């Protein structure tokens, strides 16, 4: 009989999942694709300021298999009914289910992956390629003493006596002496000092790392909604990033025009004000808050200032002085100038002016559109990293 039937063998299924390796590699590629598109994803408005546990849908392109294929203007053939008429719509995009033996048409390689914001943020920070050593350089404060058991000792205080181990030690000694026959006759076999076993405890210090983000924003009349949105995106990233890095993160919002005050988040982003700008006022306020509540020996201070670069010329020297003072107390101080595309070069640019400030923890970035946010954020943190590596 030339025909062979091989019956079903469940064990062979369990033994080999032959595509496992290729599937793993494919998933890695999908993740790579997400990482590549992270700047676009971050720029999506829906993500900024959303709940951390929210699930977002992320469209990914990237794991396509390219070949030479025909484009839009290639007609196809289908099978219709009696009353199919010219002009009738029969599908979308490429030919509806054309005989496609070789996978030779651009398929819809559009994945929509469900991903939690948490995961996305993790991935973002993976993307930043931050070394794992960060914690070493954090300013940590010892907050708590903990007692933890660690091994046993011969000596100790009576309350730490481990009765069970002590009894076991005595039985061992007794059995040993029976073997040698020495104490076999003895009726009593009392505890000996050598039997006593004490629990040992060590004191552990738990370290806590604190960080405070001071978001300073120009709320003068020239800051419109778009600029505020860009600023907000940036603050959001910074906050998320610090949350991943530190145990305790506090956030302080300082709004300023000609004078500065601390405001709630709601107010910070939604309340428009009018008037001119004294950047120095915002910095002074930040310095004041740091001095009162967040002393740099206990807190890692991050200050970021968003403005559109319009400042009264007369205020510039004062702003520079205040900025210098801020660089002395802050881990990182950033200045982001927001000039949406199309705004042109109106007004002055503080970036040029701030170039006078020589401090290795100061960084200026320029944000023109939402796609710039992620690269700018990277530049900003790269400064932090460079410092840490140097340290």
């Amino acid at each position, binding site marked *: *009989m*030339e*025909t*062979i*039937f*091989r019956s*079903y063998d*469940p064990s*062979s*299924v369990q033994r080999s999942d*032959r*595509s496992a*390796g*290729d*599937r*793993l*590699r*494919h*998933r890695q*590629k999908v993740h790579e694709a997400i990482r590549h598109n992270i700047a676009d994803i971050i720029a999506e408005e829906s993500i900024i300021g959303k709940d951390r546990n929210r699930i977002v849908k992320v469209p990914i392109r990237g*794991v*396509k*298999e*390219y*070949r*030479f*294929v*025909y*484009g*839009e*203007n*290639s*007609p*196809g*053939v*289908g*099978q*219709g*009914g009696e009353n*199919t*008429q*010219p*002009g*009738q*719509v*029969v*599908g*979308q*995009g*490429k*030919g*509806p*289910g*054309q*005989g496609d*033996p*070789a996978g*030779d*048409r*651009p398929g819809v390689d559009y994945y929509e992956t469900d991903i939690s914001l948490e995961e996305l943020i993790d991935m973002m920070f993976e993307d930043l390629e931050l070394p794992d050593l960060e914690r070493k350089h954090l300013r940590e404060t010892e907050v708590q003493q903990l007692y933890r058991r660690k091994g046993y000792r011969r000596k100790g205080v009576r309350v730490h006596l481990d009765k069970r181990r002590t009894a076991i030690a005595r039985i061992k000694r007794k059995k040993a002496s029976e073997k040698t026959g020495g104490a076999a006759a003895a009726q009593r076999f009392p505890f000996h000092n050598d039997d006593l076993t004490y629990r040992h405890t060590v004191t552990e210090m738990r370290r806590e790392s604190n960080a405070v983000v001071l978001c300073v924003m120009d709320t003068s009349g020239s800051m419109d909604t778009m600029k505020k949105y860009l600023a907000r995106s940036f603050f959001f990233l910074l906050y998320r990033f610090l949350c991943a890095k530190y145990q305790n993160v506090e956030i302080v919002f300082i709004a300023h025009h000609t004078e500065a005050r601390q405001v709630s988040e709601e107010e910070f982003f939604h309340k428009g004000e009018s008037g001119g700008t004294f950047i120095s006022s915002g910095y002074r306020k930040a310095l004041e808050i740091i001095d009162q509540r967040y002393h740099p020996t206990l807190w890692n201070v991050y200050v970021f200032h968003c403005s559109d670069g319009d400042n009264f010329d007369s205020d510039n020297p004062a702003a520079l002085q205040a900025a210098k003072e801020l660089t002395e107390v802050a881990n990182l101080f950033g200045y982001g100038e927001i000039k949406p595309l199309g705004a042109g070069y109106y007004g002055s640019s503080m970036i040029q002016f701030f170039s006078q400030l020589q401090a290795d923890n100061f960084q200026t970035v320029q944000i023109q559109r939402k796609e710039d946010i992620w690269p700018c954020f990277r530049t900003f943190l790269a400064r932090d990293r460079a410092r840490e590596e140097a340290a």
Partner: protein
Amino acid sequence: MAAAYTVAELEAWNERILILARQFGLDPYPQEFEICDHEQMLGYMVYSGMPSHYPHWSYGKSYEKLKTLYDYGMSGLPYEMVINSDPSIAYLMRDNTLLLQVLTIAHVYGHNDFFKNNFTFRSGRAEFTIETFKAHADRVRKYVEDPSIGREKVERLLDAAHALSLQCRRNLAVRKQTPDEQIDQRLADSRPAADPFQTIHRRPDYAPPDLNRVPLYPEADILLFIRDHNPQLSDWEKDLLTIVHEEAQYFIPQIETKIMNEGWASYWHKRIVEALKLPQGMHLEFMVRHNQVLSPAANSLNPYHLGMKVWEAIERRWDHPTPEEEKQSGPKTKSGRAKLFEAREVERDVSFLRRYLTEELVRELNLFEHQSRGGDRVVSRVADDENWQAIKETLIRNVGMGTVPTIQIDNADYNNNRALFLKHAHDGRDLQLEYADKTLQYLHQLWGREVALETEINGKKSLLCFTEDKLSIKPLHST
């Protein structure tokens, strides 16, 4: 789920089916059946049914895609999968009912017979299929494990090679000329045609052919050409190009005969199962299943349906020709069956449809042509007196390798710069530019120097050049 049949039962049915198949005149390879569950089936589908296949992430991708579709009930799994080898191997789904297995076994013999007898499959060595794929897999794994090569480099090369694997010769029944034969051919071509009046005519000037040109004739096998003409490639890279090329070649006959092959298998499973004289319950189930497989898909094409319709029409035309048909093709010379077996041997989808897809069939099947208009596919032609031929032409261009643009290497020393110059034989269908860009990038990676592709974009001759890291598109002045 316990299977509703035993292997002994299947063997008994198989014996009956095989006897019937032989009586009908089918001539299959020896057949092996393997019963597997859906996970295994997915695995086999992804790796083209091969028991051994080299790894690449794209197979993981298609697994995920198939599995997702299957899990969400978007698509079922095939009842069977047959691979073209000697002996032929087919996989049967364990959870199918006895009737489905019977139907499937009959269907498999149809494919098997087709593999063995159709001319397009002659170029392959079916007895070595499994071993060849195994050897390829072993070699690729060896390169992956080689510390001086490693997975990343292998993957990078495979990515590029896969992109170009279908850019190869289509009609493998025509033997490829060796370089020496090409030189002879070139010399013969350049000789002036024999002239019976040469004594009174002026002898035409003889222009010696440029034998230094590479390639002498446009070259369709892009991967092989690169393998043979890029001195920078190391041995393992050349070997990978060969492997990818050979695997693609293995699939070309199947791509080229999809409609015929599916139609043939469907035609025969119907005849065989009907001849089995099934008990009534099974017969009813057979009719349901058969109609499910053969039902025309709305607004697209079901190759099973189309193929079987054409085969049945051939049989009818030769058995019972209408007077007009007799006038057209002369008196009857052979029976319908004999004609079927002849066509099964000498046609592929393109020629099959060209010869046997008649006006009546185009009308009966309600074929229509659709075109893209503003993101939608819109019906552009329906089967009426004026348009049925245009529809047929469009269909013929969309079967087999017709869906792959014909791109050949024209010159490997373009601009005297060792740039690779390719020509797209434009037939009214433009290339998808994003894909062309990325594919040229792969080609550039393999060739290691500038590559240029001549094509037509919106009716204008254009040159797509890929240099270093970017694509430029230049309009060409047609000469």
